[in-house]
Each structure stands twice: as structure tokens, then as C-alpha cells.
């Protein structure tokens, strides 16, 4: 059974149909790409999937469960975690606390315990520390655990955001332009990281990306959006050779295509 199924998703802002009749099926363990020119509605799709916007029409099924109209917090509990196009870390908190904040719903102790550090506090905190460090090690951020998140280099901040999303134990991870602003080396490292977490945590990933090298390198399947509509969908190689896609996204064939 498909992990995520989106049927006829639509939303309008005023007269503008930002996303129109969007369909998507993602199988478990897949690495799925969502591409399209600027303003095509990619981030709007993410915002619909994560409950930031409520769709006007359509349904979203996660693991067979209807999650249409759920709020952002509920969506996270349902099992979707995301990163943001413009990095949104907890800048004034250390790296390890960014991850521990995301563990919040999986560990429990009372407000009394937290204000007195009695009771379950010590034991649970130690478990959280261990979990957080384990995750940070996967992303090779463990040496920076004490650094304030805003003081991390750009590439590390991207990774930390992914680590934080992974800490909520999602079934589906949404990455919004993870390679934006990265140099080729950082992008290559990021590709490795993404593949690593997919294999290690056997998670399903849907990502928005402009970097064609990254998309064609790791995504098995693609959906191309243009003006809020699905332009092409399917196997990455086929989609990228689709003349419609090349025309809409990579420019006219006569002009030199951007990489």
C-alpha cells in the first residue's frame, strides 16, 4: 500500500488557483522529487501536506489514514516532519537542545518534575540526551552539540534541521530545497546524508529541489509542477526528458539548458 496518497488537491488564494487538481502517490521507502519553476506551487503543496493551509478540495491519506484538514501539530503526530526553505532553527539554543526539543512528545515527565528536577527528570533527560546524541552522530553534528544553532555554518544548519525533523520519528520526511545555497561539495555531502537516512531509518522522503544534479542523482520518481498543475509525473529519467518539462522548467530547447 502507498504510504502517502494525495487526490485532487486544490487551493485558491483569492482568484489564484495556487494548486490545482494535484495528485501524488508515494510508496514506502521511496525518495520522491517535486520540482517546478519558481512560483509553481511546490512550497504550497508542502504547506497543504503539513496543515499550514487547509485545502479547498481533495484528500490526503497517510498510511491509509485520512489526515486532510489536520492542524500542523497533529500532522506531526500523524507522522510527517518537514524542513523549511529558509532555515528555521531554534537559533538561541544549543544544537543538542534543538534535537531534544523535537523529542518532546516521546518523553514524559511532569511540570513539577521539571521545575524541581525531582522524580523522573534525571532518568528521562539522560535517555533524551542519549537519543539526541545518537541522531547527531548520524549527521556528524555530535562534536558541535554545545554550539548555538545560529553559530553553525550554513551546511550544518541544513543538516541540523533534518536531524531535528528526524527526531520526531516521522514516517514521511518533507525536505524543502535542502540544497539551496550550498556549494557543490556541500550538496554532494547532503546527497549522501539523505540516502543514508533513508536506508538507516527506512523512511520515505519527498523533496523539493532546484538542483537537477541532486534530483536526478537520488530521486527515483518525480512530479513536475507548473502554474499549480502537474505537468509530468513518473520515472525521473523519463520526466526529465519530457519535452514539455524541458520547455517549462529548463527553458526552450534552443537555449542552453541550465544544469
Amino acid at each position, binding site marked *: 500500500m502507498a504510504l502517502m496518497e494525495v487526490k485532487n488537491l486544490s487551493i485558491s488564494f483569492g482568484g489564484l488557483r495556487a494548486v490545482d487538481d494535484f495528485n501524488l502517490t508515494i510508496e514506502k521507502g521511496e525518495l520522491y522529487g517535486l520540482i517546478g519553476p519558481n512560483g509553481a506551487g511546490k512550497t504550497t503543496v508542502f504547506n497543504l501536506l503539513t496543515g499550514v493551509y487547509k485545502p479547498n478540495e481533495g484528500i490526503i491519506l497517510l498510511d491509509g489514514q485520512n489526515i486532510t484538514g489536520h492542524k500542523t*501539530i497533529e500532522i506531526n503526530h500523524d507522522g510527517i516532519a518537514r524542513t523549511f526553505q529558509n532555515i528555521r532553527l531554534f537559533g*538561541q539554543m544549543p544544537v543538542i537542545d*534543538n534535537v531534544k526539543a523535537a523529542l518532546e512528545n516521546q518523553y514524559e515527565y511532569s511540570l513539577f518534575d521539571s521545575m524541581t528536577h525531582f522524580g523522573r527528570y534525571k532518568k528521562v533527560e539522560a535517555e533524551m540526551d542519549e537519543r539526541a546524541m545518537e541522531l547527531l552522530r548520524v549527521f556528524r553534528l555530535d562534536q558541535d552539540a554545545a554550539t548555538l544553532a545560529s553559530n553553525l555554518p550554513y551546511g550544518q544548519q541544513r543538516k541540523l534541521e533534518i536531524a531535528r525533523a528526524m527526531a520526531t520519528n516521522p514516517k514521511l520526511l518533507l525536505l524543502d530545497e535542502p540544497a539551496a545555497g550550498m556549494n557543490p561539495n556541500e550538496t554532494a555531502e547532503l546527497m549522501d546524508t539523505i540516502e543514508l537516512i533513508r536506508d538507516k531509518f527506512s523512511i520515505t522522503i519527498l523533496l523539493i529541489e532546484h538542483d537537477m544534479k541532486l534530483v536526478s542523482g537520488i530521486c527515483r520518481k518525480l512530479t513536475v509542477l507548473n502554474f499549480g498543475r502537474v505537468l509530468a509525473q513518473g520515472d525521473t529519467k523519463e520526466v526529465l526528458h519530457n519535452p514539455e518539462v524541458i520547455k517549462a522548467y529548463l527553458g526552450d530547447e534552443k537555449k542552453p539548458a541550465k544544469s
Partner: protein
Amino acid sequence: MDPIVKSINSKRRKNEIITYGMVTAAYVILEILMKAGALSSHLTGLLVPMVYYAIVAVGLNICVGILGELSLGHAGFMCIGAFSSAVFSLIFQDSIPEVPRFILAFVIGVALSALFGFLIGIPVLRLNGDYLAIVTLAFGEIIKNLINALYLGLDSKGFHVSMKNQMALGLAPDGKMLINGAMGITGTPHDSNFTISIVVLLAALFLSQNLIRSKQGRAVMAIRDNRIAAESIGINVVRYKMIAFTISAAIAGAAGVLFSHNISTLQATSQYFGYNVSIMILVYVVLGGIGSIRGSVIAAAILYLLPELLRGLNKYRMLIYSIVLIVVMIFNWSPKARDFRDETLAKLRAKFGGKPAKEA
């Protein structure tokens, strides 16, 4: 356990212990000076106010520094704590011995101001933006003016309330006036003193520093740093905002209890509970470093005592005070001044071979 985690945790714990140590040391020194008769009675009288303002500053820092929401009405929460506890103490002045009476009064003052914080939070903390500042500003003024117009009496038939005047209460001859309008409350037992205030300050520090280093505290700070991201990882934003704001109001209420049990005539004047007092406390928090609990205590102590100690300089007093404010602001917030401060501290440490005590 992981050595990195261990070092992070021990560093934080050390930082907290420094705060407690600082407060305790200041207490011991002042207490010795007082016993030795080295402090003037004027200065001795300033000690309790200094501590309760430090307590409100800690409470406000939870709201401004940790939660990241501006409150301009913490004097209002102080006011609620002060009046509710004073009324309680007055009623049971003769029927309950001092210690349990003060403890009960304390609990009542704290609980009532927490309740008001909670009630204000229900509508306001759902919104994002500066609404809390506006509402708390109004709240502080409303509470002050309400109490100024409130007449409350108690006789054998029970409570009598009026918003008009003392006559309208229709109090029986054996009745007791509790709140006499703008005249306020007189005859509250003098139950609080410097030692009790310090104990309350230490408790407030203990609870708030622990909170910051806990799951709930992390959630609150995550909301402060980025609300949208906090929601995306499943943090219940409204719930944690409510928790932090209620705790903040409760701590301000605790300071109010100390206030009312240290003063013979408690009146809801703007000198004590007006918005300028709220702003003054905010100044302590900002200059002590937003989010730095220890800084709030230091700033409150210094900035409260300073204008009082400068009274001898008469008209130059506020001039010097404002210069000090500016200097402290530069010292704490200008990046260059901070670098200079850190370098100087590092040099001093190298010179005296002390252990580096890291503080950002």
C-alpha cells in the same frame, strides 16, 4: 554517558550554582553588615524592596526572555499578590499564628496572580504579535484603579463590598475594614523580612532555572526562537505559552506578597503598581540581559539601589542614573563592548590563574 553531553550539563549546572552562590554570598555579607550596625536604617529599609524587585525581574524574564513575549503589566500581578495576601493576613491576624498565616497568605497571593495570568493568557496567548504587551499594560492599570475604588469590609455577617465609599458598606460596629478604597490596607502584619525575601528569591531562581533546563523549558524557548518550526515538530504552542506566562505571573505575585507584608500602609498608587513600575522592571530585565536569569537579579539589585543611594546628590540623581543605564546597555549589548569585556575577563583570568568560568 557521552562526554560532550556531560560537559554541557555540568557547565549549565555550574552556572546555576554560581547564581545561588552569588545570592547567598550577598545575603551573608549584608546580614553581617546589618548585625554589625554598619548599614544605615535607610539602607536596611531598601533591602527587602531590592529583593522583591529582583524576584519580579526573574518572573518577567521568564515571560520576556524565555517565552519571548513582552509584558508591560507585571506590576499588576504584583498588585494582585500584594492585596490578596494582605487581605488574608488581616482577616486571620488574630486567629492563626504568624508562620502558618504567612505561608497561607503567600500561597494565596501566588495562586491568585497565577490565576489572573492564566485568565489573561487564554485569549491573548492564542494570538501572535504584540497583543500581550497591550493587554497586560491595560490590565495593570485596570487592577490598580479597581483596587483604588474598592471598599471591602468584614463583620459577623460576612464580607461587604462596595465601589462607592466606606458608608455604603453598611458594616456592623464590630466589623473590620479590610480595603479602604484609595487609603488601601493598613495594619498588615509585618511578616516578611530580608531573610524570608532571600529564601523566596532563591526558590524563584531554583524553579525558573530548573524549568529552563527541562523539557517544558526547551519547548517554551523553541517557540520563542521559531514558532512555525516549533509547531512543525509537534510542540503545542498555546499550551506552553500559557505555562510560561502563568509561572511568570505567579512569581510576580510572590514578590507582591513580600511587598505587602513589609509595608504598613498598602495603597494601589502608581508609585508602587503603576505602569512605570512595570517598565522599570522591564529595564532591569533588558539591562541584565534578556534570557539571563542571573543578570536580572544583578541588574535589579544595582539599578534599584543606585537611585536611592544617590539621593544625597539630589537633582543630579536621575542624570547619573540615566548615564548608568546607557553605560550598562552598551556594556551588555554592543558587540564591541562585549568583545572588550570578554577579552579583559580572559586576561584577568590568565593573570590570576583562575579557572575560566564561561558565561556568554
